[in-house]
């Protein structure tokens, strides 16, 4: 018995020395985690599923994001990502105040739509003062006006096999040798039909500025900023996300961020 104690002790001591050695060797020791195919990374990413289920369980279907007062609007909305799309299509649309811009609603719907800005603004509107939380860590409070996405989906009559709404955008976020990548993202129908999920055309009492996504951006108030695409021109209803981009459901998701951006 004492002999066993001693051996186990030696083993544990060696193990703890090994861990502290790892700690001292500097943190590029863990850079292998950056490889999206790495097995250890995939195990760690498994926690995202747990995080997602915990958030769905606690926040439920209908809980509302906090709304704030006019007094909390103390600055203009800080823009991030693309703030002035350099795309010819976009610049053309901008040059005549988006008169030729249309929002297409397509995919798994009974009645595909093509809506002008005026048509969207003629629908019942919702205005909410909410806090925008960026994945980087900062927050900014602004007032958003738009049409509830659920109303647009109802008008298009979503087919029963649709599960996600995919947003296609006009802005090129990445130019590389393999070509241009326009911003894209997705949410599920639960969030798409959430009362605070709006297709916003107004901000702080004025028309949505170009840097914040004119003519139309999404507000998904229970998630982080990267889940709220700007410069949206097409909403596609789909039953799976595998066919889009690299298959993870969005531009940032394809670059390692979790699909459910609730934390």
């Amino acid at each position: 018995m004492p002999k066993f104690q001693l051996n186990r002790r030696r083993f544990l001591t060696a193990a703890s020395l090994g861990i502290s050695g790892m700690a001292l060797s500097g943190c590029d020791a863990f850079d292998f985690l950056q490889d999206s195919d790495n097995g250890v990374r995939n195990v760690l990413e498994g926690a995202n599923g747990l995080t997602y289920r915990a958030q769905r369980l606690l926040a439920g279907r209908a809980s509302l994001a906090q709304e704030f007062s006019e007094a909390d609007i103390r600055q203009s909305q800080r823009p991030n990502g693309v703030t002035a799309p350099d795309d010819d299509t976009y610049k053309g649309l901008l040059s005549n105040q988006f008169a030729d811009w249309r929002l297409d609603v397509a995919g798994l719907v009974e009645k595909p739509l093509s809506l002008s800005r005026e048509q969207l603004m003629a629908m019942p509107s919702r205005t909410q003062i909410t806090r925008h939380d960026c994945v980087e860590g900062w927050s900014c409070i602004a007032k958003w006006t738009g049409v509830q996405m659920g109303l647009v989906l109802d008008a298009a009559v979503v087919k029963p096999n649709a599960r996600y709404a995919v947003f296609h955008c006009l802005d090129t976020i990445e130019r590389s040798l393999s070509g241009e990548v326009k911003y894209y993202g997705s949410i599920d129908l639960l969030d798409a039909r959430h009362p605070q999920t709006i297709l916003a055309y107004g901000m702080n009492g004025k028309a949505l500025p170009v840097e914040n996504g004119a003519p139309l951006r999404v507000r998904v108030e229970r998630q982080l900023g990267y889940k709220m695409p700007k410069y949206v021109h097409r909403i596609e209803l789909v039953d799976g996300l595998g066919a889009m981009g690299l298959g993870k459901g969005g531009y940032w998701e394809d670059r390692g961020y979790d699909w459910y951006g609730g934390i």
Partner: protein
Amino acid sequence: MESHVLKAHDDEPANAAAGTLVYRQTRWTRLTHWIWTLSLFFLLLSGLQIFNAHPALYIGKQSGFEFDNDVLVIGSDYNSNGPIGYTEFLGKRFNTTGILGLSGTADNLDARAFPAWATIPSGQDLATGRVVHFFFAWALSGTLLAWFVASLLNGHLRRDLVPRVDDIRRLPRDIADHARLKFHHSRNYNTLQKLAYGGVLFVLLPLMVVTGLAMSPSMNAALPFLADLLGGRQTARTIHFVAMALLVAFFIVHMLMILAAGPINELRSIVTGWYRTDSPNGDNGSHNGSA
């Protein structure tokens, strides 16, 4: 908790006169200790990675870009000698070139808040930092919750961690003893140990979990009072950072105390459970032997 007593010569014959070996740390204490150690290591370094994505801290609901509510900003700038790294704390600017704001080798300077050796991964990679952070956040909070419930039920909290009237009365002498690096080795924790471990387990770690949740927009919808209670999301983020600094301070003191109190004996007790107490006679490990 079992309190086996083993005669010293059973384990180390050469040192029979030094004292009695007592079984001080149960396997659950040792297991959770090392799970938390590993988790906190990864949480710290991935947390600094996440901080680097926006290296500024604020007080309030939002980040002041057009008004001033920041308390800490780390950045880089140029002065007459070239690029510098700076840290601005409560409006006062300090040159922290080499560590904060600007770091790396002379021919490869990198403008980043915390240096590459202090983050996981070493380069700027918020996405990977978040994957690591949330995995270990689950590991830490899950084991902490299980430990808390179990320790409440089995009496570990009451018996070993919550300070008693005796402990409070002993506090001044305990402080004096620590200041003179005079340590008593007994099965039970001394007053300062109880306060330090209790402060980490009951205050700092729960505060980390709560401020972490208060930063989540989905949790903000589920528990809107949480961020309000903490003074707003950005204040919660600042508290999260301050609690991190306090945990690092605890770690440093913890290491120094272990070195001063006898690292072999201290390490043995947290690895195997067995701890050598001071008195060769009398102390059976069931009461505080530091008297």
